[in-house]
């Protein structure tokens, strides 16, 4: 296909026959062709080719994905893409799932909806993840978009079942209602009864995570009307009896989420259910399984023949129960289980599921109070890797791991794209060798060249991050917790991973030096999260200054007004690493420090590191004699040093005066006692000798 260029471009493309006249292909054709493109990465590339392609692409795009709702505004979005029918929006940082982000952080969908109501009047789909949605927003949504079809809310908050009721009441064309793992105010199940009696378009209904009872008869009628229903995931309040009735009505289901499976099964019920499952020939995905009993599981066996995805993550199965089940699931590609299945259960996975591509193992018991259950170890993971050669996605929560095991695992399965290993005890070493887990993740990044997502855990030094930076060339998402030894670790990652897009770090000893080492990097990334690290406000401010196109947000949680949080964070968290930063400041001449530092080391760094330092004024820092005397020759190249409220003593000052006769060392005493602490120290070079006009409270040493 030839480029169509309306405006002659001075730089010709290599293999195109460019014409200066309008091309044989009108814009509509280009748009038509481009409309067949679905991948957003392709679309983004296409839009960069030339202005015409940019325009054609933007007119033909119908689905837009926004990974960070604050990276772009609704206005910019609607201006660029006029024909959007489907929007996916993600809001809060991922660590908000783990309570690391305070409530009311943001990510409100309402402002988007307001603009969409006018610009995208024919919006059909809205998928939100980690956004704050209110009942008003849901009502507005329900009333403003006549063609609205699909709503998916994952890990959102701020709304209640009343909001859902608005949707079910007003959205006449609804095909999808998918409510997953939200922080929802679950008032009642009445929303389900709000579907009009003639409503029949539903294809996807997922209310598995809502706890309130729904009216079963209303659900039954709904299911029987909606002949196109493909996905039905009920909540745990559904009984077996009710499940049976639903299955009979909807044997064409592709995805089923069961309720609680706890009741006793009479033989008649048993065979009825079994035959109902037998009739579900299209079933590919099974989930739910809240509180399942052994007796129930065989009922499922007929339905498992075509299963590709089995989600048992809410069921605490034993190894034998899982094993018996998996025998019937030869086509399984994705499996989510709890670690109650233990290593034996995972061995069964390895034996029975040769097509397995994704495995997620969640901790079964309350991780805070584990006493009895053993969970899974490296043995189970190994067993899976021997049996499932196609494995490329793993999320594995375990209590112990070894470097050797991980190395073997990735040798068996070199095609990992997502490797998320969570050794649940922070900073736990290889339990056999007691060494850090560096080599494990080193093996992962060296062997798995397609790796896109990595989560590390266990005892890790900077070496892990050296490996990551050096080898993980396709890495896009990295999650780090309780790891690393110094700034160097984070620097390696920032400098080394060319495709890095999301970096989330908690409780690691990375500070300003690391943060600022490659600040241009952040422009090629979606986001960086650092919590519990050693970054200070000053570091953040510096970053914000250097990179005006970045949004640098600091979450302050002291929570009360009157709190000078800026100063608070900037000063109270100034470890020596910040002073290491000053080692890099080769032109620094004047430095003022207040309420900072953790030890003598900080001041020593400055004295040793800043070659052009001339004035150093310090107040209320824990620097003492060691620091003062560490580089006393330095003071001769400086104009002056002021120290007050530090830990310097008279002895230290006297020593300095002795060593450096050409320095005037003055101590201001304000108490009248000959106390030992030299509260205020002023040191400066002079060719005139000690001054003669010093007042009584200045002691010249």
């Amino acid at each position, binding site marked *: 296909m030839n480029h169509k260029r309306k405006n002659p471009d001075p730089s010709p493309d290599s293999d195109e026959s460019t014409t200066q006249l309008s091309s044989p292909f009108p814009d509509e054709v280009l748009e038509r062709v481009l409309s067949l493109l679905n991948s957003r990465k392709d679309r983004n590339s296409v839009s960069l080719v030339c202005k015409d392609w940019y325009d054609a692409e933007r007119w033909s795009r119908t689905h837009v994905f926004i990974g960070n709702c604050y990276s772009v505004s609704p206005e910019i979005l609607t201006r660029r893409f006029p024909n959007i029918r489907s929007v996916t929006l993600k809001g809060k940082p991922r660590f908000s799932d*783990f309570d690391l982000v305070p409530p009311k952080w943001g990510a409100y969908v309402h402002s988007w909806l307001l603009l969409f109501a006018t610009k995208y009047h024919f919006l059909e789909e809205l998928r939100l993840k980690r956004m704050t949605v209110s009942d008003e927003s849901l009502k507005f949504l329900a009333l403003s978009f006549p063609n609205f079809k699909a709503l998916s809310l994952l890990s959102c908050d701020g709304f209640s079942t009343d909001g859902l009721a608005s949707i079910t009441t007003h959205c006449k064309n609804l095909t999808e209602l998918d409510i997953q793992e939200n922080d929802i105010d679950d008032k009642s199940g009445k929303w389900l009864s709000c579907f009009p009696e003639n409503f029949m378009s539903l294809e996807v209904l997922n209310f598995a995570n809502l706890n309130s009872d729904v009216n079963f008869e209303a659900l039954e009628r709904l299911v029987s009307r909606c002949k196109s229903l493909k996905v039905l995931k009920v909540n745990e309040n559904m009984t077996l009896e009710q499940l049976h009735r639903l299955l009979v009505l909807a044997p064409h289901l592709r995805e089923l989420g069961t309720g609680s499976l706890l009741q006793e099964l009479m033989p008649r019920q048993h065979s009825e259910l079994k035959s109902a499952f037998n009739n579900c020939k299209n079933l590919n995905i099974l989930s739910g399984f809240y509180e399942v*009993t052994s007796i129930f599981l065989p009922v499922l066996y007929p339905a498992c023949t075509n299963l590709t995805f089995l989600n048992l993550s809410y069921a605490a199965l034993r190894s034998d129960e899982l094993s018996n089940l998996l025998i019937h699931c030869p086509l399984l590609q994705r499996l989510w289980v709890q670690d109650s299945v233990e290593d034996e259960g995972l061995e069964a996975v390895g034996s029975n599921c040769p097509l397995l591509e994704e495995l997620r193992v969640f901790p079964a018991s309350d991780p*805070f109070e584990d006493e009895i259950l053993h969970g899974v170890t490296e043995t189970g993971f190994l067993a899976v890797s021997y049996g499932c050669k196609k494995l490329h996605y793993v999320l594995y929560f375990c209590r112990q791991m070894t470097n050797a095991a991980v190395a073997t695992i990735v040798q068996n399965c070199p095609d990992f794209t997502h490797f998320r290993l969570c050794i649940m*005890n922070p900073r736990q070493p290889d339990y056999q060798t007691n060494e850090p887990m560096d080599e494990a993740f080193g093996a992962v990044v060296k062997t798995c060249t397609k790796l896109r997502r990595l989560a590390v855990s266990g005892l890790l030094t900077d070496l892990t991050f050296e490996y990551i930076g050096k080898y993980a060339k396709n890495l896009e998402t990295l999650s780090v917790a309780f790891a690393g030894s*110094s700034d160097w670790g984070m620097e390696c990652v920032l400098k080394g991973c060319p495709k890095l897009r999301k970096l989330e770090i908690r409780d690691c000893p990375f500070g300003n030096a690391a943060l600022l080492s490659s600040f241009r990097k952040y422009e090629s990334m979606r986001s960086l999260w650092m919590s519990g690290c050693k970054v200070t406000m000053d570091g953040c401010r510096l970053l914000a200054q250097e990179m005006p196109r970045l949004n640098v947000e600091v979450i302050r949680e002291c929570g009360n007004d009157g709190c000078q949080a800026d100063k608070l964070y900037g000063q*109270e968290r100034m470890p020596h690493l910040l002073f290491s930063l000053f080692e890099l400041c080769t032109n620094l001449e004047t430095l003022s420090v207040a309420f900072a530092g953790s030890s003598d080391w900080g001041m020593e760094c400055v004295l040793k590191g800043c070659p052009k330092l001339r004035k150093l004024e310090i107040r209320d820092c824990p620097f003492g004699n060691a620091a003062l005397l560490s580089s006393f020759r330095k003071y001769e190249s400086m104009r002056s040093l002021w120290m007050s409220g530090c830990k310097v003593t008279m002895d230290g000052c006297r020593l300095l005066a002795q060593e450096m006769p050409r320095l005037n060392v003055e101590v201001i005493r304000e108490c009248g006692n000959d106390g030992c602490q030299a509260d205020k120290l002023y040191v400066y070079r002079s060719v005139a000798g000690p001054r003669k006009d010093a007042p009584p409270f200045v002691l010249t040493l």
Partner: protein
Amino acid sequence: MQGVVVLGGATRSGSISTLSMEDNNLVLSSEDSSSPDESELELALGLSLGGTACKPQQHYARILTAKDFPSVGSSVSVSASSSSSSSSSSCSSSLSRANVTAGTKRSADSVAAANGARFSQVVGWPPIRSYRMNSLVNQAKLPATEEFSSLIGNSKNSNSVVGKGTNNCSDKNNGSAKENGRSRSSLFVKVNLDGTPIGRKVDLSAHRCYETLAQTLEDMFHTSTSTITSIRSSGEEHDKATRSSKMLDGSSDFVLTYEDKEGDWMLVGDVPWGMFINSVRRLKIMRTSEAKGLAPRSEERNGRQRTNPI
């Protein structure tokens, strides 16, 4: 930058920094400053300093200025404290607290290490979505299979399979496996102790009244509170067994407060348990002196006079 412990790795100076974001009185204790000899004149980093100018602040997190730092050898200059007696004792307590904070952190570390498979109750760890966490705990309480229940049922709280809205503390485990009754989904909320950087979590749905909750919390923070209260009462050791829920009756140095859905901090115990459960977002064990400011708020809220919490 939340209230989690920064457990520094191999930092060059080898100092360990302990910080708490949610603490009003921040103390940065480094190994250098932990020696109490020069403590009188030693100035540790932070708002409330271990030594000279420590005092309960009437407003939070004020950066101390030079005026707060006496010159060499001067006496403790304390201002803005409600009672003169509290100032000196709070000085020593916050001094000791500097050590206690470090001590607490270390003990938490060693607890974590010693327990092997047991996790320190760090906020947000292991990284499992709250929804799933609650479901797992919920499920662990309900006997799923006979074998499972025999494994789990014993060591867990005895409150399970209770209907919603019961306030009776004496509910025991009556649930049979056959019942379809559901206990409330677990309600894990964060709880922080003033001065301790490590936040913990407590499952509120495991309790039916304030007493058991307070007792659980006191047990949870036993090391800290007993140490601190013992300092206050000139070194007496408090026997764990003899303590009742002092936090609720106002006799302890610490009171239990919570943040409700509207973001206000309230004293625990004012409202009926059910109402409390519905509105609590997180808990905080505050020093009694700090919590004095809370009384008026709840008076506005509830419109009634309140002297002591329940």
